[in-house]
């Protein structure tokens, strides 16, 4: 599967809970439905928080990539 092409990247490197979720909410408000947000995080808590957030808010988690300490999430805004 090809890598999703993000329309916006949220750099949450070094930030810890609650900031990745707080900033993800803010970033998603700037996107239109169908657009993709890339979130780059290093907080291991995001591994559970971001998928759970997607399920709760009705947005689609297209993929997760891990490279060293960086975790990349690709989220498509659904509404």
């Amino acid at each position, binding site marked *: 599967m090809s890598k999703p092409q993000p329309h916006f990247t949220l750099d949450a490197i*070094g930030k*810890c809970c609650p900031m990745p979720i707080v900033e993800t909410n803010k970033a998603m408000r700037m996107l239109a439905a169908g657009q993709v947000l890339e979130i780059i995080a290093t907080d291991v808590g995001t591994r559970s928080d971001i998928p759970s957030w997607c399920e709760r808010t009705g947005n689609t988690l297209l993929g997760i990539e891990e490279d060293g300490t960086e975790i990349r999430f690709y989220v498509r805004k659904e509404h």
Partner: protein
Amino acid sequence: MKSLAIVVRDDAYDKILTPLAFAYLAAAEGTQVDMLFVNWAVRALTEKGAAELKIDGRHADEDAYVREQVARAGLPAGIHDILVALKETGCVSLYGCSLAGAIFDVNETNLIPQAEGIVGASWFLHEKAAKADLCQYF
């Protein structure tokens, strides 16, 4: 979750971070958060009181380290700054307990403008805590 009520009692800098972080998480998703500051924690609703919050007890000598780590984590380092950020979400209401206000000298004259006001605990428990989807005590 549509509503969250939080009662904050402990005013140590490190211990007050958790309820503030939980409130920030919930508010970021549009959950209405009502926070009642009781006992010593009511002083966090004044600029002077918020600035004076320290880590106490056996971790007191790690105050500077914890503040540095909080800043690195992306949160505003000062408690007052966090309260301002919470208010800016538009989903957080901050209340001071009237009994705590009387004991710890917090009133309408020194309350930060981000706070809704001083309220009776009975009102908060019945109108906010009992009606919230979740109520937490710290």
